[in-house]
C-alpha cells in the first residue's frame, strides 16, 4: 500500500500588491487582495504607482471614478459613455452597489488596510513625474520609495501587479 501523502504546497506567507491604475474598478481589486492577505495572516505591502497614486492622494482618493469609455466590461456604448457626466453617474451607481455589500469606500478601505499592519508605499518615479510630494498623500503612506527599494521590501514574497 502506498502510504505517501501528496505533498502540500507551501502556504503563501508574503505578498506585495502593485496598484498602477487610477479608476475605481482598477483600484479595488488590489485593495481586496491586500486586505484579504492580511485577514489570512499573510504579510502584505501595497505599492502605488502611476495613476494608482490617486488611491492614496489626500485630495483625490475620494473622487476615484469608473471609466465609462474604453471599458468594455461596463457594457456601455462608447458614444454613450462619453457623454458629459456619464462617468460620475456610473460611479455613483457602482458606489451605491458597493456600499450595499458593506464594502468600504476607497479612503476608508485604504485606512483599514493600513490598520491591518500592511505597508503603503508610493513609487518615487511616478511621484516625481506628477510633481507630487509626501504631503500630498494621506498620512498612512509609509514612504516614497524607488523600484529597487520596492524589490528589497518585496523580497521573499509573491508580487501581484494590478
Amino acid at each position, binding site marked *: 500500500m502506498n502510504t505517501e501523502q501528496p505533498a502540500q504546497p507551501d502556504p503563501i506567507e508574503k505578498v506585495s500588491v502593485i496598484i498602477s491604475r487610477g479608476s475605481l474598478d482598477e483600484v479595488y481589486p488590489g485593495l481586496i487582495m491586500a*486586505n*484579504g492577505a492580511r*485577514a489570512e*495572516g499573510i504579510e502584505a505591502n501595497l505599492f502605488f504607482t502611476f495613476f494608482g497614486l490617486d488611491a492614496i492622494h489626500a485630495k483625490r482618493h475620494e473622487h476615484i471614478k469608473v471609466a465609462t469609455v474604453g471599458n468594455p466590461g461596463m457594457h456601455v456604448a462608447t458614444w454613450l459613455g462619453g457623454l458629459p457626466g456619464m462617468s460620475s453617474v456610473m460611479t455613483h451607481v457602482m458606489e451605491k452597489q458597493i456600499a450595499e*455589500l458593506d464594502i*468600504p469606500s476607497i479612503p476608508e478601505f485604504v485606512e*483599514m488596510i493600513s*490598520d491591518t*499592519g500592511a505597508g503603503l508605499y508610493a513609487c518615487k518615479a511616478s511621484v516625481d513625474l506628477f510633481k507630487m510630494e509626501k504631503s500630498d498623500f494621506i498620512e498612512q503612506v509609509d514612504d516614497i520609495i524607488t523600484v529597487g527599494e520596492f524589490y528589497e521590501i518585496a523580497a521573499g514574497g509573491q508580487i501581484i501587479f494590478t
Partner: protein
Amino acid sequence: MPTKTVAGTTVEVNDEGFFTDPSQWTEEMAPELAEAEGIDTLTDPHWTVIRFMRQEFEEKGTGPTVRALGKTSGVTVKELYQLFPKGPAKIAARVAGIPKPRGCI
C-alpha cells in the same frame, strides 16, 4: 472526520482545525486553543472578540469578517491585529470553536 482532544474532551474539527460542531465548544477550551495559535494569555479584549464571534455565529450562522469585527465588536481593526496577528477573524474563529468566516472583505 479528524478529531482532536481539547481540555480533556474529544471534538470534531475539519482539515484546517475549525470546529465542525460549535456546540462541542466550551469556554474552558479557549485558552488551550489559543495557545496552539501562539497566544499565551487570553486578555479581556481577546474574550470580547471570542464572545462576539460566538454570538454572531449563533445569530447569523456564520462568523464575522475582520471588517465586521472592526465595525461592531468594539475592538478596532488595529487592536484586532495586535490581539490576533495571524488573522483576527480566522484565528478568533478557531479559538471560539466556530467555522471559518467566509467573506472577501
